[in-house]
């Protein structure tokens, strides 16, 4: 025991030593960059060549345009495949493999497409109208089980084909080598959007038959790139398609898709110049970009066409009472939400995102934060709010359960709702669940009382939001998409009418009315549309975030050779820098 005294002296010494060590490490520490490390060569016009490196934080399943349907696979599919139609940089439908937009018959039922001349698959074989038909029939075959089916149910003869009563889909007719016609059972204003989805992309039959179930690992299409190599879970390399039909395109020779790269290391690599473009950042990294003047020209923050909200189950008390739902809708302090989320969300109080037909900033019945209204609605619902201590928090009159996604983000939204609803006497108990559980349980009637949920577009049309989220047709015994279980015959009729209406202006008015009804009845408290920030290196040129396709990199070019930007005279590292302070800029 005699050595105890020495131990104590050691404690003090050790403290001093570790402080010294910290300072030493700090002093020798290179300072972090205050801006981009590389810049372009300054070419005034687009040039060919170079390799673009981008990433995603998950692993990719495969590149089969007919069965893959997620942001991640789409990043590759948009490089490899094309369909008859696509969108331009402003989100308008344009012909792609088709020579022009299709001719539509007077009854609005037949669409006739003509293929461009000289289009070849990456294998070199010319594309014919027969390929278009074969591809759609493959996608719609029961054995393929494509998630795209719902978008094409209006095709004539689809049921007979799927039941095995017909060899082909009667509604798809090959007229000649380059002409194909589609016939619908009823007019449908979403059909052309469906034809621009990746499900309608054209694939060569022989390749699918050769690889069978594994074709997603061996993609061949008509897109600007072909698959060069694939190291599972690590990276996918795309090489220029030598048979590509657009002269001079694409610009970069190669694109490398780094997989499984999560936000933090991705951002460090981006700062190092090892990644050319990034699309998702941690809050700290996001703030760094937004506050750095040197990075300002190289990022864009753009609203996504999506919708988020707090869905209340209209079949379960207390939310079977419209006044409770309206009270909730008016108690959400959307501005505070936006600030807490660093303005990465844009507040909204209606079911249609801006930019869509039927969106009106001044829509009647738009939900907005107003505690007066919220408390009045609670009173109408029969709940008297008492606040004896006058702190703005009345005594609880209701307890509800709210499902949130696992992880920090889901938790933050849960806590925001919790804190807002406290002010109208509603106690919210949060229940974090995994995604599969959420999908299964919230799709069953009378199961989940309330939840944070969202939807992002399949195509930029109001039907893709209203029909799916609020039409009574989207209620089933399992797997309902109408997770608020909201039913309103008046709305159903309006939506059915709007879906077939060919006059754009009339159609827009119908959707306005529909949106207003949904906002009024408040099956959801609409909360926000999300915003996405894309940042790129100075030598990446002409990149514009695409309004429909997330992370679509086929049109940009690289201003190479890149040059290293001389290091700014940094503030030097300090012990603080070592602790990770450096990114907070002055």
């Amino acid at each position: 025991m005699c050595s105890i005294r020495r131990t104590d002296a050691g404690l003090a010494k050790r403290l001093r030593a570790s402080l010294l060590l910290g300072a030493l490490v700090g002093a020798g520490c290179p300072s972090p960059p205050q801006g981009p490390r590389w810049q372009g060569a300054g070419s005034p016009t687009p040039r060919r060549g170079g390799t673009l490196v981008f990433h995603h934080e998950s692993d990719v399943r495969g590149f089969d345009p007919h069965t893959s349907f997620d942001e991640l696979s789409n990043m590759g599919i948009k490089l490899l495949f094309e369909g008859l139609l696509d969108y331009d940089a402003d989100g308008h439908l344009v012909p792609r493999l088709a020579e022009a937009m299709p001719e539509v018959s007077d009854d609005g039922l037949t669409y006739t497409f003509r293929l461009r001349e000289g289009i070849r698959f990456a294998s070199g074989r010319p594309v014919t109208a027969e390929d278009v038909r074969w591809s759609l029939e493959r996608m719609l075959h029961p054995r393929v089980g494509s998630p795209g089916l719902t978008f094409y149910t209006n095709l004539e003869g689809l049921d007979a084909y799927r039941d095995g009563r017909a060899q082909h889909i009667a509604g798809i007719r090959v007229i000649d080598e380059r002409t194909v016609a589609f016939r619908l059972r009823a007019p449908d204003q979403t059909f052309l959007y469906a034809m621009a989805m990746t499900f309608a992309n054209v694939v060569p039959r022989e390749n699918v038959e050769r690889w069978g179930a594994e074709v997603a690992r061996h993609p061949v299409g008509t897109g600007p790139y072909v698959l060069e190599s694939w190291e599972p879970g690590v990276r996918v390399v795309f090489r220029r398609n030598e048979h590509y039909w657009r002269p001079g395109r694409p610009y970069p020779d190669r694109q490398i898709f780094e997989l499984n790269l999560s936000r933090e290391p991705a951002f460090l690599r981006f700062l190092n110049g090892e990644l050319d473009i990034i699309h998702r950042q941690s809050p700290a990294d996001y703030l760094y970009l937004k506050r750095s003047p040197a990075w300002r020209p190289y990022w864009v923050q753009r609203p996504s066409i999506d919708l988020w909200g707090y869905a209340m189950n209209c079949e379960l008390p207390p939310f079977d009472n419209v006044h409770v739902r309206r009270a909730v809708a008016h108690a959400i302090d959307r501005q505070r939400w936006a600030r807490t989320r660093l303005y990465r969300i844009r507040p909204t109080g209606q079911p249609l995102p801006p930019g869509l037909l039927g969106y009106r900033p001044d829509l009647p019945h738009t939900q907005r934060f107003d505690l007066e209204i919220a408390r009045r609605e609670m009173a109408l619902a029969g709940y008297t709010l008492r606040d004896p201590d006058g702190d703005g928090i009345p005594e609880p009159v209701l307890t509800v359960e709210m499902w949130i996604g696992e992880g920090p983000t889901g938790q933050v939204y849960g806590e925001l709702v919790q804190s807002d609803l406290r002010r109208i006497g509603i106690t919210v108990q949060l229940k974090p669940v995994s995604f599969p559980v959420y999908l299964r349980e919230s799709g069953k009637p009378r199961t989940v009382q309330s939840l944070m949920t969202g939807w992002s577009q399949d195509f930029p049309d109001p039907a893709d939001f209203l029909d799916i989220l609020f039409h009574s047709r989207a209620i089933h015994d399992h797997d309902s998409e109408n997770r608020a279980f909201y039913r309103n015959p008046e709305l159903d009729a309006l939506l059915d009418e709007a879906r077939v209406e060919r006059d754009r202006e009339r159609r827009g008015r119908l959707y306005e009315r529909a949106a207003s009804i949904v906002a009024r009845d408040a099956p959801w408290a609409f909360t926000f549309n999300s915003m996405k920030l894309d940042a790129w290196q100075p030598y990446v040129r002409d990149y514009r975030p695409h309004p429909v396709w997330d992370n679509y990199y086929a049109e940009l070019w690289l201003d190479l050779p890149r040059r290293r930007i001389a290091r700014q005279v940094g503030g030097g590292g300090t012990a603080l820098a070592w602790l990770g302070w450096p990114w907070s800029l002055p």
Partner: protein
Amino acid sequence: MTRYVLRRLAWALFVVWAALSLVFVLVHGVGDPAAATLGPRAGAEQLREFRRKHGLDRPLLEQYARYVAGVVRGDLGTSFRDEQPVSRVIATRLPRTLLLGALALAFELVIGLGLGIFAALRRNTIWDTGTVALTFVGISAPTFVTGLVFLYVFAFLYGWFPVGGYGVDALDHLRHAILPAFTLAIFGAATYARLMRSEMVEVLGSDYVRTARAKGASRLRAALAHAARNAMLPVVVLVGLQLSTLVSGAIITEQIYAWPGMGRLAFEAISALDAPLVLGVVLVTAATVQAGNLLADIAIAALDPRVRMTG
């Protein structure tokens, strides 16, 4: 000895089977693989189709029988998520995880045992206290913090290591593995150091070391020659236990360093309720754990012949 090993082997097989069966029930009871794979947009019809294709519409008992029959034939099934044979997916991922795990284990043993012996020999000095304090920090520091800090400081600011990833060839893989392996090793090294130190302290105070020293052997030599073997016993047990993490991978570390190993795979498989893949991972993990325990038990028996062969 042979009989003992054979009996242990039979038990090991039983445990693997039991683990597999338990997980089978869990993974099929937890959620809906069809919805999890096809996502929120899938209509009722596609979900039905998916369930039919993968036999999920059959009675659970039949699915189970089919699966077990497949495993016995060496067929682990096909992943729901990417339609690849599970055995092929695991064969790609396992070597990467083994590389990372082996390197981490090496770091743990070298650093942990070294520090433990060092501290014990200098018991109650500032070196000892310093080492012990270091081990507390090591035990308390979560990987998601140390990993990020290391990545930021050593990979990004200093540029000594690559900023995450897996590299392109064997040497490159090793270079990429150093930092994540070190991160992974901190907790284990601290645990080993503390265990080793306390065992060594006890051994150093024991009669035979005193006798050996009286005979003129140096403290270190006496300790190592007579006692280290004794102190190694719990260490061997721990190493055997650790094999499971070595094989099943480290989810958080792999994520921070973008290391494409089994941990990420397992996590994604579980999140997506990809039953065949989950079961494949469980099978490999359970089998390795069993092998590890078996080896550890045999090693213990070899290290300490007084331990009777039981169990």
